[in-house]
């Protein structure tokens, strides 16, 4: 009894000793932290920002690549199916995108992988697939998300994945294998064709070695075609490939049309409770064709206000009874800057539209361009 009590408190005092020590060393580096200097030796040792080093790249298909990453000190282990945010600097600007980890947490070399498909017009994914070299560093976030198999219940999973949506399922499958606990699993995977299926060979191998794993690959393209022509998700197909789908928990990950079709079907069948979805909606709002105003939501103050296309957001906020920070009111001091949470705004000086979530918005010189949400 006393033993039990003792051990957690001793680890706690150990970690609080470490915290105290690092707080003490930070005093020598103020206003930076000691870790900013440690970073000079190796970016992975930094305590203030999490980075990962690219140690290997491998082409899965003609436009998908797996990056093997070595995370920094502050990394924590993840659950199969979780994702991380990755920051990539492109033309000097850091963009953040979310990618699912494709390796299993049981992997014991301290590395993990993400598998990225270069999507049409996707500058970030294109950069990750084509430009990132072994040895470069990426800013990463900690694993997040609740798209994972429950440990407590013996669920029978049905994976429905398409394209690079295979990644969470791959991590879960590999994890089950590593734990030697393959569950009764059905997998419907949509890929363009046999040679353009991410992890295609690996899936087939697992299927041939484990009778509990039932793999159904659906090919959606004829060779040489650029557009999907066949193999769309529909009710009969589901019934045929997985007759007992109503007894399973469905884990779905893929492009928006697939997810929409599935949601519709599951709603119709009153099965949404058993449908788990991982979606990565694009972070870009639609750019309105003409200069239009919209509703501005100030998220911190919980105020919504109507705005036209030419009134500065600072004015809009003030007219709505708020008093957001500001200074020069002419775009030079940046004290009015806030973060764009969603939607689109227009810089009145240049007419440029800002629609990338997370961008800084100078409220004194920007107006609404359609609906938008600000961190004020």
């Amino acid at each position, binding site marked *: 009894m006393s033993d039990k009590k003792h051990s957690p408190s001793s680890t706690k005092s150990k970690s609080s000793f470490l915290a105290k020590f690092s707080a003490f060393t930070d*005093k*020598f*580096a*103020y*206003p*930076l932290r000691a870790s*900013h*200097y440690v970073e*000079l030796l190796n970016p992975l040792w930094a305590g*203030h*920002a999490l980075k990962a080093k690219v140690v290997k790249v491998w082409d899965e298909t003609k436009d998908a690549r797996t990056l093997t990453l070595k995370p920094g000190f502050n990394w924590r282990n993840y659950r199969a199916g979780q994702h991380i945010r990755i*920051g990539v*600097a*492109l*033309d*000097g*600007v*850091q*963009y953040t995108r979310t990618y699912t980890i494709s390796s299993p947490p049981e992997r014991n070399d301290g590395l993990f992988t993400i598998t990225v498909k270069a999507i049409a017009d996707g500058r970030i994914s294109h950069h990750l697939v084509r430009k990132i070299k072994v040895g470069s560093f990426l*800013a990463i976030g900690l694993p997040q998300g609740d798209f994972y198999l429950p440990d407590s219940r013996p669920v029978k999973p049905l994976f429905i994945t398409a394209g690079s949506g295979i990644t969470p399922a791959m991590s879960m499958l590999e994890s089950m294998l590593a734990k030697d606990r393959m569950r009764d699993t059905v997998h419907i995977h949509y890929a363009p064709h046999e040679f353009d299926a991410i992890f295609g060979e690996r899936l087939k191998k697992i299927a041939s070695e484990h009778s509990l794993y039932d793999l159904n690959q659906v090919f959606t393209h004829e060779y040489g075609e650029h557009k999907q022509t066949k193999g769309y998700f529909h009710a009969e197909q589901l019934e045929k490939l997985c007759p007992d789908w109503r007894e399973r928990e469905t884990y779905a990950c893929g492009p928006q049309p697939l997810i929409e079709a599935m949601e519709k079907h599951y709603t119709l069948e009153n099965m949404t409770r058993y449908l788990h979805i991982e979606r990565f909606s694009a972070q870009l709002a639609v750019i309105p064709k003409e200069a239009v105003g919209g509703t501005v939501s100030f998220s911190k103050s919980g105020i919504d206000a109507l705005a036209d296309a030419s009134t500065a957001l600072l004015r809009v906020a003030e007219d709505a009874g708020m008093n957001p920070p500001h*200074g*020069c009111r*002419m*775009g*030079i*001091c*940046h*004290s009015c*800057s806030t973060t764009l949470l969603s939607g689109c705004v227009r810089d009145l*000086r*240049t007419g440029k539209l800002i629609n990338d979530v*997370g*961008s*800084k918005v100078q409220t004194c010189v920007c107006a609404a361009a359609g609906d938008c949400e600000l961190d004020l």
Partner: protein
Amino acid sequence: MNTDEFKKVNTKNSTRLPVDLSDPQIEEFGRELDAIREEVIDSRGAKDRKYILTVIKTQRILGLLGRIMIYASILLLPAWSHDLASSTNFWILISLGTLSLATAKILENMEIGHNILHGQWDWMKDPDIQSSSWEWNHVCPSDQWIQSHNIKHHTWTNVIGKDPDIGYGLLRVSSRQKWRPFYLLQPLYAFLLAVLFEWGIAIQELELGKMFKRKSHAEKIRPLLQRTGTKMMKQITKDYILWPLLAVVMTLPFTFSGVGPSLFVVFFSVLIANVLANIFRNMWTYLIIFCGHFPKDVYHFTRAQVENETRAKWYVRQMLGSCNIRGGKLFHIMSGNLSHQIEHHLFPDIPSNRYPALAPRVRALAERYKIPYNSASLTRQFGTTLWKIFRYSFP
């Protein structure tokens, strides 16, 4: 335009700017500058990011090297009896260390801190390099400095009674400031301000002078005072207590066993090296910043002149109220590119590494519109500044 001519055009009651341009002409001038600004904003990219990351990294390496050299110099004190120990070697190394530390502090305040706090690098969306979260290596807390610098000084540049940086509330640098006997000793204040510049800036923000006039002011600034006090304490603790003390702790065992130098010498060597590094930084930043708005032929403005000011007129005022210093590439970097004060004041949020290329364009533009462009050597700019400080100490 010399000062006499300036007086003619710009009499006290005039509400016009001292340039020979009609309002539509001034607006056209403004449009040209807007176009330049937009062009640069659009061309920001990977090269600029690489630049600032390199400067930041260099700064940290120099800072670390400085600390290491200062510590290593302790090992060269003659009291140790190894071959390298000699006072010459000690002095050489501790001087190098001090210089390296001072250089790091200058880079941090000028090219890095000042410019990041202007939001010049916010566009990179790098969470570590944002004006809203960067804390600079200076006794004045970042956000408070942004208040007095970005907002007051950059908006009201050289407007008497509005710009807190005209003489820093301490000096009389324009004939339009009313003379008081207090100013008789201003060469002395100016010198003290140079040595203690960072403290001057931190205190200026508190507008202590008002405290004597209005009781309510004291109440108002209490939270400011507290935050500034905390920041000052942290800076003092780091440079004047922790680093010297750690050196003492490290030599302690040797000194007690009779082979090391006196702990007193150790403590004060490190302390004085740090004090000097801070003073060098103060004097350098003072030198550059005083050359920005005080040299001869710079213009000051009345409140009447800036009433209903358009953006274009604001541009003109920035040009007339700022001065550039000529120099080489390294000089510009060490001055945080504030040697391109004119370009900085026209475009305070454009990355500083772009100012050198902008300068000739702005200069040519100014020439076309016959607007003075005040650019000269450091000797001329600082010389005339000193002369002003001396001259205006008298009525």
